[in-house]
């Protein structure tokens, strides 16, 4: 029975080809927008998660809670923090906004003062050459490791080991020898910087201290024995580092996991807001469906009269028209989903990232769209069902 009505509804859709096509398009565009936005959100979240899971998972940063805390972090603190229970290693960190002058080009960058433990603690990886080692730190060597992106932006290739570049530190440009190229991406440090600084240069922290005229450090990076997201450990360590510095809450510990959480939360909020905005287009497409159905009722008044004359009840006519609007939105949704997923897949292939199926959003977009079709189909269906047979036949 319902199968016959579905076939009849399908035929009616086919009959009004142009109108049906336009209605399908309006539904498909709305669903496409929702699927694409959700897809971008899913892929983004996945990228952040996968990167953060492999980088800096056991790392944390000790830093002053605010600029006015007056706490200086020293070599002794690095040693003391490194000996705390649950901490494997500690590393001094310096940081400054800078510019790199390479081949006459001035490129914005952030300069980090690190030591030989940077590979383990802040998860940097050399793609060419080497990283900063203990001798560089000991000798206060004018050497640096730069992000792959910086090399490509200046020389047009990633391997520029052995080249000399100038880095703006302490108010003037200083010459450094490039000893290594680091893999660019969302490293632990970049996540701490909330991703706003794309390119990094890494120097021996001792060299950086000399240039900026400091004996203390900006932060101390810790390599922990277990997941830094462990709240108990973070709480204990925060109390211990403050206690070591005779402070109540002057020092805070930030872990990369919390940074990941913040990033994914922000991405999730943006995705949700954009999806809701796109969802409005689904409501608009529902109105389009209603308009198309009302026109259809007008055009098929006689048909409704014929059907009523041969025994169709109000419910039969209502179900036929409702099925038609639901089928319209369902087909439109499927087209939108296919196009949206295709666009996401294509985008992922172009960007070289792994495609993630935003299944929940796809189901939600389909369900919401069909619901809109059903809701906005009620009025035209009622109008059709309530037609008096004698008037419909005239």
């Amino acid at each position: 029975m319902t199968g016959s009505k579905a076939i009849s509804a399908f035929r009616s859709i086919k009959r009004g080809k142009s109108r049906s096509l336009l209605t399908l398009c309006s539904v498909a565009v709305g669903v496409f927008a929702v699927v694409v936005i959700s897809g971008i959100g899913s892929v983004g979240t996945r990228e952040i998660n996968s990167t953060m899971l492999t980088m800096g998972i056991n790392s944390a940063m000790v830093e002053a809670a605010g600029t006015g805390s007056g706490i200086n972090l020293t070599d002794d603190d690095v040693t003391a923090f490194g000996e705390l229970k649950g901490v494997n290693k500690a590393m001094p960190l310096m940081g400054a906004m800078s510019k790199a002058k390479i081949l006459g080009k001035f490129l914005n960058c952030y300069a980090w003062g690190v030591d030989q433990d940077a590979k383990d603690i802040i998860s940097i990886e050399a793609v060419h050459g080497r990283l900063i080692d203990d001798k560089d730190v000991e000798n206060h060597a004018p050497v640096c490791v730069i992000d792959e992106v910086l090399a490509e932006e200046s020389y047009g290739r990633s391997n520029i080991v052995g080249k000399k570049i100038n880095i703006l530190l302490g108010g003037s440009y200083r010459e450094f020898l490039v000893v290594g190229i680091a893999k660019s991406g969302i490293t632990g440090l970049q996540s701490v910087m909330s991703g706003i600084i794309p390119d990094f240069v890494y120097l021996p922290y001792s060299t950086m201290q000399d240039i900026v005229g400091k004996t203390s450090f900006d932060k101390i990076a810790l390599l922990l024995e277990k997941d830094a997201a462990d709240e108990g450990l973070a709480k204990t360590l925060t109390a211990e580092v403050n206690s070591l510095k005779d402070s109540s809450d002057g020092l805070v510990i930030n872990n990369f996991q919390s940074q990941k959480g913040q990033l994914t939360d922000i991405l999730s909020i943006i995705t949700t807001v954009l999806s809701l905005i796109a969802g409005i287009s689904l409501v608009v497409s529902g109105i389009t469906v209603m308009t198309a159905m009302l026109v259809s009722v007008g055009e098929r008044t006689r048909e409704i009269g014929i059907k009523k004359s041969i025994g169709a009840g109000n419910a039969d006519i209502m179900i036929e028209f409702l099925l038609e609007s639901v089928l319209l939105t369902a087909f439109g949704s499927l087209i939108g989903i296919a196009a949206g997923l295709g666009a996401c897949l294509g985008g992922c292939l172009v960007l070289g990232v792994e495609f993630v199926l935003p299944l929940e959003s796809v189901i939600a977009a389909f369900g919401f769209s069909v619901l809109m079709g059903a809701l906005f189909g009620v009025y035209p269906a009622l109008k059709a069902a309530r037609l008096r047979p004698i008037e419909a036949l005239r």
Partner: protein
Amino acid sequence: MIVTENLTKIYSTDGGIKVKALDGVSLEIRDGEFIAIVGASGSGKTTLMNIMGCLDIPTEGKYTLDGADISLLGSGELSRIRSRKISFVFQGFNLIPSLTAAENVELPLIYRKTEASSRKRIVTEALEAVGLEKRANHLPSELSGGQQQRVAIARAFAADAPLILADEPCGNLDSRSGTDVMEMLHGLNRIGKTVVLITHDEKAALTADRQIRISDGKVVV
């Protein structure tokens, strides 16, 4: 059995003018009769058929079909009666243009909730009865007027309703097709259906068991 008592139908035009289409029509049609309701154009015969077919309700008077007072029924009950007891054959055929001949014949069976397996058999038999089994998959637009009317008769045949209301069934047909259609209506009458033929064609009316003449909304004979 059809009984009308003092049936009156008054239409109001857009300008507020009241038009009396039926004026106190009282008649009786027994089961299995072939009746011709004859009258000139505008005499009120189609209005009478619409009321008899439960497509419209009278302004005054009483219409009883098989003992049920139709004027007291709601739209749901009326559609059930149309589905079970009445089949129409219209002058303009009234087939659904997007459905094939077989699908048009099947439609009343769908509304009667007949099993799909039985529907196929009934549709085939009905189309065979009107000689259109080879045209089952043709759309109405692919059929001649005579063939379309035969599909409409097949639809009435398939519906197996005891009352067949035929409103000028030959009005749009050539004489040969008209004769065929009349023969088919008589065939339905022979198998026990009550046939009410609405016509202004005296020749066709004479083939009926009885003629009821209508003029200016009143029964004159």
